């Protein structure tokens, strides 16, 4: 089996492992973060592939879908769920900023390493900092949505 398939498999295993880190009393928060993230990643993922900004040579459901199902449907939403669950909401602003930067940087670094060494993703008209900015922005949007969703109703 090619290294790419092993990687995909380990991404599934790792993401599923992360699911077990979610505390039981925050399952609903994690669910909302997960689902909302999917809404963002699906649409943006399709748009960037349609515009040929990047491609995923090795992927699941290859004959019908040119985006990365693993990343967009499962791995990234799971990461976002754990991001939202662990978010230090009552800490100082620069701890929050650092939290954003750490999460985004780890994900971007992983993506760049995978891009350089495997066929899972290839940048065409894309740079690592575009990844960084979009990932960070999507975290922010998801958190904003979650705060709205779990806020006290105004009536």
């Amino acid at each position, binding site marked *: 089996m090619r290294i790419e398939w092993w990687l995909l498999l380990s991404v599934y295993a790792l993401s599923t492992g992360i699911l077990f880190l979610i505390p039981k*009393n*925050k399952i*609903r*928060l994690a*669910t*909302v973060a997960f*689902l*909302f993230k*999917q*809404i963002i990643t*699906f*649409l943006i*993922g*399709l*748009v960037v*592939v*349609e515009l*040929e900004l990047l491609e995923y040579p090795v992927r699941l*459901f290859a*004959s*019908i*879908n*040119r*985006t990365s*199902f693993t990343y967009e*449907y499962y791995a990234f939403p799971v990461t976002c769920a754990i991001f939202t669950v662990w978010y230090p*909401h009552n800490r100082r602003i620069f701890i929050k900023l650092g939290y954003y930067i750490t999460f985004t940087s780890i994900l971007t670094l992983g993506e760049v390493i995978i891009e350089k060494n495997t066929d899972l993703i290839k940048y065409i008209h894309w740079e690592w900092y575009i990844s960084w900015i979009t990932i960070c922005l999507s975290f922010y949007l998801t958190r904003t949505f*979650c*705060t709205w*969703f*779990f*806020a*006290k*109703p105004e*009536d």
Partner: protein
Amino acid sequence: MKIEYFILAAMWIFGFISFILFIPRKERRKGFLALMIFQAFIWLCDMPSFKYGLLSAPVREFPKATDLSITINYFFYPVMFSIFYVKRRVRGSAWARFKYFFVWISVLTLFDIGIERYTDLLEYGYLTWYGMWIYIGLLFCVSQVCCNWFFKDKAFFQAERRET
């Protein structure tokens, strides 16, 4: 412009208007959650269905990126489910609830069949009309069970509110 694109645009406009119109302000969270859960399931089920030729979408929004239909999967059916979920009567008899479910599924299936027959937006492969009925019914059932789980415990939901 082809008729298909008009129908796609109509689905977006009609979907937006009905989401705003039929989902009261107080229930908007419920509506969003139902929409998102249905969307997650329909993507997951449509991937293998399209791959193994149950159905296909000859005219679609992102022909290069995916063979799936975005408007239907991403927006229109999730909005329909969301309205179905918010508008359903929780305290009705089992028969009334079944009728409600039956009518919704049947109307959506009719719509789907109409699109299949008269436009190129959808094309059934191995799928038959009753297959589609069962398919939509299953998606509705599973999504409803998940939504019910989410809103099952009011106290729990409130506790999580403070945690955000």
